[in-house]
């Protein structure tokens, strides 16, 4: 049984003429322990997808089930690393992580909770900065705090919403390697949202492209049959990498082109609400 299953999920925002359909008819399954990357354009609806799986918003139609049960709301078993990190600025690194630990493991002794907190801060290499406030950290460090907070919750499913997209290319490469290491150590089920195809291939077991919006659909799933640990330098010359990369990019570009045609074509008169946002 898949740990996460989406069936015919649709989501749009607004009402009446203002309505815009964002995601249409998504089907997705995640097996336990799998790392799946969803790659898509900016604005395609990736964050919307994550919010629905996290239970922060509800789909308009279709169903999302987690461990066989319908998702009714958010919960710590589906931890999210938000695109904006969402650290609480008045708390230090340690306090940010500890807030989550205290909540999820309320039945533990205080000493054990503290040790658990410290362990996860060390895991992302931030022990030296544990008493700093988020404002005193670099973007990459904030991102790592957010990952530490999510991992410390020991979730069944980890949702990573473009965790590295706000970083420069060099920091990004370093953190990708680190993320690869952490993912392998934790062995968790992870849904990674990204706009970077290379990142997806480096980290994921399987890649699912998301069309360009509006009314984006998920494309065919492509499995990444490259053994781990993956070395980014060697990867660049690997024919499997090149083929996969071309496949994903072609698919996405094709969907973007189709979308343009769709938007420019004269619209047929129809009685049902149009999927395009009204101008």
């Amino acid at each position, binding site marked *: 049984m898949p740990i996460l299953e989406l069936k015919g999920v649709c989501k749009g925002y607004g009402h009446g003429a203002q309505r815009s359909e964002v995601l249409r008819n998504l089907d997705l399954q995640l097996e336990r322990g799998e790392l799946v990357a969803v790659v898509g354009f900016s604005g395609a609806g990736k964050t919307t997808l994550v919010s629905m799986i996290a239970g922060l918003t509800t789909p308009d139609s279709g169903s999302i089930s987690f461990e066989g049960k319908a998702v009714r709301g958010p*919960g710590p078993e589906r931890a999210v690393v938000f695109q*904006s990190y969402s650290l609480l600025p*008045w708390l230090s690194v340690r306090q940010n992580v500890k807030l989550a630990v205290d*909540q999820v493991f309320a039945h533990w002794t205080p000493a054990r909770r503290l040790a658990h907190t410290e362990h996860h801060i060390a895991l992302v290499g931030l022990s030296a900065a544990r008493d700093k406030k988020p404002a005193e950290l670099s973007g990459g460090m904030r991102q790592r705090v957010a990952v530490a907070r999510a991992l410390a919750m020991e979730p069944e499913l980890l949702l990573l919403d473009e965790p590295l997209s706000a970083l420069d290319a060099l920091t990004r490469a370093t953190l990708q390697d680190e993320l690869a290491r952490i993912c392998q150590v934790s062995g968790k089920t992870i849904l990674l949202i990204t706009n970077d195809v290379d990142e997806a291939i480096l980290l994921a077991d399987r890649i699912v492209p998301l069309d360009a919006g509006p009314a984006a659909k998920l494309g065919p799933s492509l499995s990444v049959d490259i053994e781990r640990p993956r070395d980014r330098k060697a990867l660049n010359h690997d024919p499997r990498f090149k083929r996969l990369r071309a496949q994903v990019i072609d698919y996405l570009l094709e969907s973007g082109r189709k979308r343009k045609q769709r938007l420019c074509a004269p619209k047929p008169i129809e009685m049902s609400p149009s999927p395009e946002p009204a101008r």
Partner: protein
Amino acid sequence: MQEKNFGQRAFDNVVLPMLGVGMVIVLWAIVSATLAPALPGPWKTWQVSKLYVLSPFDKRGELDQGILRFTWYSLVRVAKGYSLALLIGTPLGLLLGMSQAFTRSFDPIIQILRPVSPLAWLPLGLVLFQKPEPAGIFTIAMCSMWPTVLNTALGVRSIPQDYINVARVLQLSRSKRLLKITLPAALPYMFTGFRLSLGIAWLVIVAAEMLTGAPGVGGFLWQEYNSLIYEHLILCIATIGIVGFVLDRLMSLVENKLKVA
């Protein structure tokens, strides 16, 4: 921006403000000598007020005390009314910020009560409490509460969705969410409200003391008006202004600390 050297900074921050004060005093002297003979001039004001300023804590009689002693009485009164305002205003603001239904129900009332002058509240206070002291405190509270209420509500309403999402994923209980997310996130706004409230509380003190004849800067001012010692009016006005300014500065210090944090 170019870094200014020490001499220039001293000129900007000390010499120029002094120059401004000096110019106003000269203008005051000219006006009192020519246009408004009833207005005591600067030198006369200083002569008559000297005793009150140079021995500011003396007590020679109930309504004849050093200016800082009067100020102290007023500050204590303001502190009581202000504390009451915060005690009522903060929870009220939190409720308004958290509940739409509560806002719909009570916002109109608040908008109606907010502009009511202290001169209107005081008689009601006297009717309610029969004594001038609690009536004054009641008036201060009723007038100074609103910025705290409105800014606290605004602070709660403008908590970023991100923080709320964190609370939801963690499934924080209502009380924990209030303590760990809502209050810290709204605190900078709340302090803006606290600062504005303190300003109003201090503004109201004169009216409250004038009408009740309580000892304090405002009571002193009113009494000296009745005794035709107009120099003291100016002394009181200057004192009220300076104290208000200092209070505001102190509150902004705390406020800015919170904003950085």
